């Protein structure tokens, strides 16, 4: 078999004909009708596409490197879609990870290519958001420019002092005092204006960032679960906080000083040219070299210091890890080993830091020398001009001082592109969140239908990633008031089913209805208002117990909150705390046990009085005793209400009217506990396994009844 890497193509046309070619040469053709299912098999650094054929055989179609993984998944999805519907149309947008223009990979979570986007559009857009702050910003900029121009007077004062008073020895004390006073005045006024403008700039910058942050955060709250799941919490936090802060820093520092630096540069350049254009040209001779060296130097510094930062961060994380796991380290007697491990990382950090300091100590003086070459040239040729009587000493001093004024803007210019790029990246990331089109969209006139009818899954297929289907062609009808239990191994799609029922995601194929209405035709707010959910990991916000319960029904009165807590068996433990319902919980507040948290979660669901109740492993993390306290609350909550419950602990589902067993993406078994036990299938196996596990010594054996 030829295993050499080659470029190839697998193609499916509208008639269902598949063509497999290698280096442009067709290897074979296949009809999609012969295929039962197309699948991707992941390897290490590569993968393969294979078909399960209608004649029960299996056939490898092609291998691919990881760069083609998503396309391979999309292809399988396409083939499977064709097999189900007879159409080669694509059910939804393919996931994009490569820029269609330049072929570079897109940054994680971004759908815009940072190399190909139009920078001016982003800048214009960011600038348009500056409009409300236009007046203070322009005022501050004018003040800053004025104060900088004031400082440009200092060399002129120096020239007058030398040429008019000191060299001819004609000046009086009062002349000198006036000049010194003028210099002092320039400095004082300049500083006062600078403080004033900094304050105005900072305020405008903060308000601008606040605005940008709120727009991004507001949008993030309205994003679908699908869009949220594509990004890590850290990424979202960085976009809302850090990226907006980068924009603010750029605005406050570069925006403020940029205009001032450019203006100073131009004004000084004009003055220098008018003073002596030949000398000015000479001074500018080494500038390209200076710019080149500076640019290389900053890049080198950046890489070297980034490396030092990474080493430091690694030492930090190792230390953090060891200290957190110190109990494990001690219990295994591995202290010596850990000391050595840290010493090695610490030494590496020391070596990198020392190398960087050495480089800094060598390069910095050299750089200062190169940047100062202009001054030497000016001094040499200026000195000659003085001796020849073509130039006065004062003019030379003024000239040299102005040269010094040019280097600041140059240094700023060298590192400006990197800062501009960072800011634009930040802006693109923030705007991407702002521009995100929700994939869970409401129709134009959504209906607010009461959720009183049956909940129906009609041939629902869904996968979080296009190439990994989780549910395949699932159909089920849940009647009002019925309690359904969903069981199955981890990752089989239990939570996916309830996520779909809550419309946190939309199915790829099929429909979900409540009564006769497709849930996609209902308003999301209305749908969610009538559903109550208790998860395994209850999330409670920082605040009082009261606030957390009332979160589900803003404006609920005290009586409603207490009644809900009583129904959830939470009231008694709440009353044991010193502050009762006003006990602070969440981070650094009163620490709740698992059972207490779950009871608060149930109370939160009770107060909503939902039409459909969803329990996602609501009691899985509790011990048997606590579970029975929680169960009581749950029983009151679910009575006469449509309930969908997921549970690993099968005893939790003993009151369910029907239990469905999910396996391999579909419903494998369905029926009451007794029916399923008699069937002796997957459910029977699960019950027997749990019974064995609990009967082997555990005091908290669940009362799973045997089949009669």
């Amino acid at each position: 078999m030829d295993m050499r890497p080659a470029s190839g193509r697998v193609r499916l046309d509208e008639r269902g004909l598949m063509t497999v070619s290698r280096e442009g040469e067709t290897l074979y053709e296949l009809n999609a009708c012969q295929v039962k299912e197309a699948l991707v098999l992941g390897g290490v650094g590569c993968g393969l596409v294979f078909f399960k054929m209608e004649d029960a055989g299996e056939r490898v179609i092609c291998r691919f490197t990881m760069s083609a993984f998503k396309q391979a998944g999309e292809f399988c999805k396409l083939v499977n879609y064709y097999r189900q519907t007879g159409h080669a149309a694509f059910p939804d947008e393919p996931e994009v990870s490569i820029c269609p223009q330049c072929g570079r990979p897109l940054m994680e979570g971004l759908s815009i290519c940072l190399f190909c986007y139009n920078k001016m559009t982003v800048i214009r857009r960011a600038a348009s958001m500056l409009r409300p702050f236009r007046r203070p910003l322009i005022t501050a900029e004018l003040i800053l420019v004025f104060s900088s121009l004031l400082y440009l007077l200092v060399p002129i004062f120096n020239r007058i002092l030398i040429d008019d008073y000191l060299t001819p020895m004609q000046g009086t004390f009062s002349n000198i005092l006036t000049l010194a006073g003028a210099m002092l005045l320039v400095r004082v006024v300049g500083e006062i204006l600078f403080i004033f403008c900094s304050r105005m700039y900072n305020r405008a910058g903060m308000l601008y960032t606040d605005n940008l942050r709120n727009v991004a955060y507001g949008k993030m709250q309205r994003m679908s679960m699908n869009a949220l799941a594509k990004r890590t919490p850290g990424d979202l936090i960085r976009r809302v906080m850090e990226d907006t802060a980068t924009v603010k820093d750029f605005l406050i520092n570069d925006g403020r000083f940029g205009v001032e630096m450019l203006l100073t540069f131009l004004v000084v350049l004009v003055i220098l040219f008018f003073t002596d254009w030949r000398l000015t040209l000479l001074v500018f001779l080494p500038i390209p070299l200076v710019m080149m060296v500076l640019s290389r130097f900053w890049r080198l510094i950046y890489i070297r210091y980034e490396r030092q930062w990474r080493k430091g961060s690694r030492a930090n994380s190792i230390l953090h890890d060891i200290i957190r796991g110190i109990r494990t380290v001690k219990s295994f007697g591995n202290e010596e080993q850990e000391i050595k491990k840290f010493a090695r990382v610490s030494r590496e950090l020391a070596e990198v830091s020392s190398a960087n300091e050495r480089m800094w100590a060598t390069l910095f003086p050299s750089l200062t020398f190169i940047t100062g070459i202009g001054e030497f040239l000016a001094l040499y040729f200026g000195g000659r001009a003085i001796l020849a009587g073509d130039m006065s000493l004062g003019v030379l001093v003024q000239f040299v001082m102005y040269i010094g004024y040019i280097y600041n803007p140059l240094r700023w210019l060298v590192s400006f592109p990197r800062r501009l790029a960072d800011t634009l990246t930040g802006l693109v990331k923030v705007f991407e969140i702002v521009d995100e089109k929700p994939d869970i969209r409401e129709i134009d006139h959504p209906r607010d239908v009461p959720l009183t009818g049956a909940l129906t899954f009609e041939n629902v297929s869904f996968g979080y990633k296009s190439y990994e289907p989780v549910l395949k062609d699932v159909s089920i009808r849940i009647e009002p008031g019925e309690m359904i239990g969903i069981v199955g191994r981890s990752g089989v799609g239990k939570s996916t089913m309830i996520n779909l029922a809550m419309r946190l995601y939309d199915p790829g194929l099929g429909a979900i209805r409540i009564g006769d209405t497709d849930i996609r035709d209902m308003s999301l707010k209305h749908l969610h208002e009538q559903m109550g959910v208790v998860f395994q990991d209850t999330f409670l916000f920082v605040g009082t117990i009261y606030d957390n319960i009332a979160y589900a029904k803003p404006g609920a009165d005290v009586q409603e909150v207490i009644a809900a807590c009583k129904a959830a068996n939470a009231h008694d433990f709440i009353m044991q705390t010193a502050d009762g319902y006003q006990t602070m919980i969440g981070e650094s507040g009163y620490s709740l046990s698992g059972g207490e948290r779950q009871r608060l979660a149930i109370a939160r669901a009770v107060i909503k009085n939902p039409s459909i109740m969803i329990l996602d492993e609501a009691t899985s993390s509790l011990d048997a005793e606590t579970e029975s306290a929680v169960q009581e609350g749950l029983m009151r909550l679910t009575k006469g209400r449509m309930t969908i419950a997921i549970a690993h602990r099968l005893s939790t589902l003993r009151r369910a009217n029907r239990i469905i067993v999910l396996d391999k993406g579909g419903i494998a078994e369905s029926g009451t506990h007794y029916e399923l036990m008699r069937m002796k299938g997957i459910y029977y196996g699960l019950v027997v396994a749990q019974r064995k596990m609990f009967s082997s010594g555990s005091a908290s054996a669940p009362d799973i009844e045997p089949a009669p």
Partner: protein
Amino acid sequence: MTHPSVLEKQTTEPEQNTDIGLLDTRETDFYKTDGGFTGLRYKGKTFPRVSFRRALPIGKPDSYISVADDENKEIGIIRDIGDLSHTQRDVVREDLAKRYFCPSVQSVKSVKDKMGYVYMELILTGAGTTYEKSCAINDVNRNIRMIDGSRLLIFDVDGNRYIIENIQALDKKSMSRLEPYMF
């Protein structure tokens, strides 16, 4: 209180369990299926599609190879490919080569650091072919990894991996291009 009969004086060191379910390589019969997979006949049972996974892919690619059925249930472990007959060895090696693809880096033509990514142009050798490839690496701290004193693994944004078997043997130019990113 523990019942007295349960107490037994421990006189010897506890015995270590070293049974890892090694396959009896005298009885394994790996064969290639028509569809391009590998099947196994073992002790009277036939597994129409098996897959191989290396326990120590970097250090010992030929030792401790897990053999699993089409539902990913482990059938057993091959202690060393050398224990198999020549023909059997070829079948297993071919299947492993289909599952593991990690071309080795011959030289580094260029390294560019842009917008949080490191873009590399590499000359690679994989499955007997030498070719050039451009790749992008995100979070170099995590994705350029020294495995031991000499081996370096590079993971690109797509999930491809490239190995430098001996970093000391890399040419000077490649080394100086890569050096700032090695941690």
